[in-house]
């Protein structure tokens, strides 16, 4: 007789941990392949189009990157707030306001030439996101208002602000009455260099380093981690909660605003209604990315790329394989769930005993 015991694991090597992640990811892909087989598709064909093509075809890889960059940048900001125990879900709105600020800069200073103009637009975007996040920050720090509610509500206010602008003062006179702003001036459009979106990728990588430095190397990062692990102890050690709440939300807002400015300058080039807009709901995807990365700045790179690849794969399923939306949801669900299930294997181990 066999006896299987599940025991708690107290120590785990990094090597084992990462191999469990990889194995669970592969398992997720295999389960999805199995579902495709049941669905009646050729699993080789599906898998090669979903997971091999993006690596071999540059045009396909670009699509993954286009989603991975904004998701990743916002996830980095969220990493910091989540580490402090503040659960912001406001990236979506902060991103929208970042795009609004960047657009305003582009319309107001249309005479500025490229390198400077883009830096200014990105900084303006970051400032916009920062200011938008500051209000929930103040409410949290001073009055201990639940940040989940305030940040979520601020997303809707940001949508409405965009609506006000596109239906009102910023409505393009040349859009035949449609609710669109004018395209931003050419000098503010980020074009890929030789087909590679250099600015977007380097902004993302720089953000990773920056967030790593903030969390792991700065005193503030230490205070944030202290609050996250034991707020009472952190408070009695004299760490100001107001400062932690304000700065965490402000920094994460700035990252989200930066992502919004990047989306505006490199992808959409103008503001439109919610369903066509620059945010595309990526602010919510970033939350998933931050948690998949276990709130580690370095891990945000693979997690954001994974989520970008899933969005890309979803489009492939519909546009190339001709399968319905439901299959897209199954793919997302199966793969993400498998990765989350890795936690179980990290925290527990199996012991198989043979009984006589």
């Amino acid at each position, binding site marked *: 007789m066999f006896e299987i015991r599940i025991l708690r694991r107290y120590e785990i090597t990094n090597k*084992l941990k990462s191999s*469990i992640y990889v*194995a*669970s990811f*592969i*398992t997720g892909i*295999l*389960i999805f*392949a*199995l579902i495709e*087989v049941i*669905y*009646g*598709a*050729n*699993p*080789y*064909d599906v898998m090669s189009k979903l997971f091999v093509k993006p690596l071999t*075809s540059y*045009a*396909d890889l670009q*699509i993954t990157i*286009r989603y991975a960059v904004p998701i990743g940048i916002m996830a980095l900001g969220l990493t910091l707030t989540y580490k402090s125990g503040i659960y912001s879900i406001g990236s979506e709105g902060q991103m929208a306001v970042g795009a609004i600020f960047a657009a305003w800069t582009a319309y107001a200073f249309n005479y500025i030439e490229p390198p400077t103009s883009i830096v200014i637009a990105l900084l303006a975007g970051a400032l916009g996101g920062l200011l938008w996040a500051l209000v929930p920050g103040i409410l949290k720090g001073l009055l201990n208002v639940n940040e989940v509610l305030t940040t979520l509500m601020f997303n809707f206010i940001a949508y409405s602000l965009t*609506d*006000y602008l596109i*239906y*009102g*003062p910023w*409505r393009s006179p040349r*859009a*035949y*009455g*449609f*609710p669109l702003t004018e395209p931003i001036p050419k000098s503010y459009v980020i074009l890929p260099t030789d087909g590679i979106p250099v600015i977007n990728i380097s902004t993302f990588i720089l953000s990773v380093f920056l967030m790593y430095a903030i969390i792991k190397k700065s005193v503030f990062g230490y205070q944030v981690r202290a609050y996250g692990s034991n707020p009472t102890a952190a408070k009695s050690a004299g760490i100001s909660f107001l400062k932690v709440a304000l700065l965490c939300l402000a920094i994460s807002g700035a990252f989200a605003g930066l992502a919004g400015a990047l989306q505006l300058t490199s*992808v*959409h080039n*103008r503001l*439109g*209604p919610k*369903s*066509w807009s*620059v945010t*595309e709901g990526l602010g919510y995807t970033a939350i998933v990315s931050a948690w998949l990365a276990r709130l580690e700045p370095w891990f945000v790179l693979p997690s954001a790329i994974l989520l970008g690849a899933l*969005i*890309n794969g979803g*489009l*492939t399923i*519909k*546009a*190339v*394989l*001709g*399968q*319905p*939306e439901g299959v897209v949801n199954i793919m997302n669900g199966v793969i993400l769930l498998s990765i989350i299930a890795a936690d179980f*294997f990290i925290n527990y*181990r*199996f*012991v*198989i005993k043979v009984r006589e």
Partner: protein
Amino acid sequence: MKPQLILALVVVAIVAGGIGYSAGSLAAPPPKTVTQTVTTTVGGATVTLTTTVTQPPRTVTTTVTAPPTTVTVTKPPEKIKVAFVYVGPIGDYGWTHAHDVGRRYIESQFKDRVETYYVESVEEPKVYDVLKKLVNEGYKVIFTTSFGFMDGTLQAAKEFPNVIFFHCSGYERWSNLGTYFADLYQLYYLNGLMAGALTKSGKVGYVAAHPIPEVVRHIDAFALGVKEVNPKAKVHVVWIHAWYDPAKARAAAESLIAQGVDVLAFTEDSPAVIEVAQEYYKRGTPVYAFAHYSPMLKFGPDVVVSGQLVRWESIYVDIISKIITGVYNTTNLRNVDYWWLLSENAVELGGDFGVPINPKFITPLKNFKVKEKISGTEISVYDLVMMRLKQMSEPRPSFDPFCAVNEPIISQDGKVLVRPGECLGHEALWSIMSFVDNVVGSIPAGSS
């Protein structure tokens, strides 16, 4: 060590299963060339991949027994791969469904020359990525059917100069990007004539989607129709700020009825308004309604008077045949803009195809007499509708609701919108953003 082992076992088991299954299904097809022809035909035929996997062995045998040379000689190189990108599911009850009817029609009309494919529920900001994938799959003609696809389609058109793009409802064109639209304003005007005759309270309701020119134009045309037969009646507008939201449309219709409205028209992609009218009718309060976009007569057989129907297929047939004959190519679409109406047979009056007016309402409409505004003779509203329908269906229409005949068309704020003897042309109608004077309600935010 142990968990790694187990994981490895699980992985191996699943891999083995997958390989075993697919090896079984893949082993069958014989020579490579034959499999390829099969996959292309099936892949393009808009069916899910189910057929591709289960059928190859069988189809292959049939193709082999039939003389393969004749097949390859007559068709393959000339079939044009046509793709449609939809914003909603093809099962919606309006916009996307109507386009898909058009797609299926050209698929059947040009069986030997085109193969069609569609991608449904594409989020608007992601359209450029979808187009990139479609071009990569070899699609040569791509239709994008939502206004929000405009920027992405333009970007794709610039990037892929060898592909023909057509965008529905936008205004951006390029050498390989044309635009097309079938507009319903004439039908809304005809519906307005009937609404004006049928209202007892003098209050007609309109449930409107978004405050954009298309919807404003339809409300105005409807209101002009109402005014022509019933100068005192008012059109009350409620905005729901959504193209598809049955719950909001229902609430809007109910609030209008509560204000005393007894005839309803709408722009929204569900039959919710008609369902509300049918419920009120059943309860003994007669409220009538006009169908929008799709044949919705069956949702309210007692209350649907007429409606607006679209025939995208007439535009699609025209575009595809011009592409096949070489009239349209990737260099000459910059000025190709379809604005098709009744005279091109792109739209049809009625709550169902072939039923311009619900027979139930023919007698009351025949009994309602008005003075025809051009000749001044007395005429029944039924005859008036039929006369206007005929006038607007002529190759060169002899009537248009936005032409002011003896009196000017006045806007809500008292300004003259159209002077007598003048008409609003395509440009003006395309960007119209003011209500005519018998509309109650306003166009929200920032619009002048």
